[in-house]
């Protein structure tokens, strides 16, 4: 009976399986030093406008930063448990960009879809800025159409001019592209960490829990078999 139940269970689980195919290229897996660089890049380039209101300053220690280094790298002074709020006010941002930028604490989890993980989306997004004179900021994005954010990292990636424009030639080249890829990988890795800081700890604990339950299930199986034998020897 148990063996027959397996394919039925599998059948019942089918609706859980994703049928969508991955449309976004896989983001690289980053850890250690690269994550720290990503955190520094976020603080230097992004934190003026974009908040991580669920991440606290002293949590940066989990990425391997010393307390002293955290104090140095932050733009503004603050207490250790202070949330990473943007330095610019909401009113100013509304004036500059026409909208208040979203809180990015959960960006990496919110952007996951059938097309790929949140990291895949963020990486594709950071790769896909292009010049567009029709936009107020002069920038547009192929992944997020008519995005209000300009390409803050354009000096790292270089700018690609529209062909019809005929003015400046492309300032993007292979050497730059490699370096840019490395830096955005760190940045995306940092945002993935920020969206679920307990993920690494959770998996470590999980191994212990699953190992215990494996042993426990084996023990309960042995116990069950012992009682089974008792019943089999008995007659109706």
């Amino acid at each position, binding site marked *: *009976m*148990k063996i027959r*139940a397996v394919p039925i269970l599998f*059948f*019942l689980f*089918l*609706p*859980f399986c*994703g049928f969508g195919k991955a449309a976004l290229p896989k983001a690289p897996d980053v850890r250690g030093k690269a994550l720290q660089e990503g955190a520094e890049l976020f603080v230097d380039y992004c934190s003026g406008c974009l*908040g991580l*209101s*669920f*991440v*606290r300053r002293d949590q940066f220690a989990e990425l391997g930063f010393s307390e002293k280094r955290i104090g140095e790298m932050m733009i503004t002074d603050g207490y250790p448990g202070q*949330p990473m*709020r943007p330095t610019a006010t*909401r009113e100013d941002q509304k004036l500059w960009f026409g909208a*208040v930028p*979203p*809180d990015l*604490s*959960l960006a990496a*989890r*919110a*952007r*996951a*879809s*059938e097309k790929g993980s*949140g990291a895949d989306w963020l990486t594709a997004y950071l790769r896909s800025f292009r010049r567009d004179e029709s936009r107020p900021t002069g920038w547009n994005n192929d992944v997020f159409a008519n995005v209000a954010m300009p390409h803050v990292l354009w000096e790292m990636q270089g700018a690609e001019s529209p062909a019809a424009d005929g003015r400046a030639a492309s300032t993007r080249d292979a050497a730059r592209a490699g370096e840019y890829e490395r830096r955005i990988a760190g940045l995306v890795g940092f945002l993935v960490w920020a*969206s*679920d*800081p*307990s993920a690494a700890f*959770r*998996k470590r*604990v*999980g191994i212990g*829990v*699953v190992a215990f*339950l*494996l042993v*426990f*299930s084996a023990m*309960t*199986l042995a*116990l*069950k078999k*012992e*009682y*089974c034998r*008792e*019943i*089999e020897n008995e007659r*109706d």
Partner: protein
Amino acid sequence: MKTPPSEKYRSNGGLFADLLEWLDARLPLTAFWRNHFSEYRVPKNLNFWYFFGSLGLIVLSMQILTGIFLAMHYQPSAAPNADGLPAAFASVEYLMRDVNWGWLIRTTHSTGASAFFLVVYLHIFRCLLYGSYRKPRELLWIVGVLIFYLLMAEAFTGYVLPWGQMSFWAAQVITDLASAVPFFGNSLADWVRGDFSVGGATLGRFFALHVIALPLALILLIVLHLLALREVGSSHPDALSIHDPVETGEIGSIPFHPYYTVRELHAASVFFLVFFAVVFFAPEGGGTLLESENFLPADPLKTPEYIEPVWYFTPFYSMLRAMTRPLFGIDPKLLGVVSMNGAVAILFFLPWLDRSPVKSIRHRGAVFKLMLFLFVLAFLTLGFLGTKPPEHIVWGTIPGTSAAQTATFFYFFFFLSMPWWSKIVPQAPKTRNLRFK
């Protein structure tokens, strides 16, 4: 040597034995244990499918336990905090990050909701396989269907609480269904929401329903369900007719404790193994258990591109959407609401729709097997289509809406035509299998 039910516990002089004697003289302690465990007779041949009732009870306990700790930190408020995020949404994230082991409590609760439905669906499916709803278990079955209704309400109100985009818009879609009721529909919808659209008032009442009213009602009905079960006893996978000698305990029954308690213990440990593997390694379940859209705070001004319910509601959601044209002069929206509710309500009549002379699938023959297979297929198809936009094309050829309409039709056809096809059974039943495994 059986103890007569009236016999009270006699101490052998030890301290705890004295205490037990004192308690047992004043409370029916040992009688309860005998009636419900050590002398409660159960058919010895119950199989894999009979685990899901007790697993449901385990998941319920887990939901209540984790729920208590969630309620300590959760704030049922839609008001924005200093960062412009709704307080309810922020309090869930606070739980996930700042409360010690809060992530574990929350993901156990959110994964537990899905596990509850999985277990309950399999529990219901077992009843269909072995005719467990037939006489004398009609009331047991009816209470079970009521529990299923309440469980859906409990899951829906709970889903709204994190106040993410999907929480908000699902609440909007579902509360709006009340407006399909003729004459006073709009007033009814406003009454349910406590506002003209989903807002803080809705969140407050859903919280109260989710943590107090519905769990209390659920527990009450589950007690009734168990009482009814103890009265009529368990059915079994080899059940012939309503006068089956195994069910009446004439042959092949064993005490629940210790034989079934050790089996349930093993079932529970395997269940926990799978469950906690999900909790620790895939708490989002690839967007099925925690939808990515719900990591965005509720925004009444930004409708998501596509609103989809959690997987356990998708079969019913598909039925709602399948009604695209008026039928018998009834407006499609009302028709959708009627079929969605009717899909569950028709289960109440199942004990009387089934006219088969035998109970278990083992003796019912090919017609029943084919019908049940198609029914499960229709249900899963509806479930799958509910996770897709209505314009989804199945296998590149069949429009999703037509597939959903066909499946909805078959869902009801299965029940409504049952009085006829259920009578068809082969003559002689095969040999009986009454082994304890």
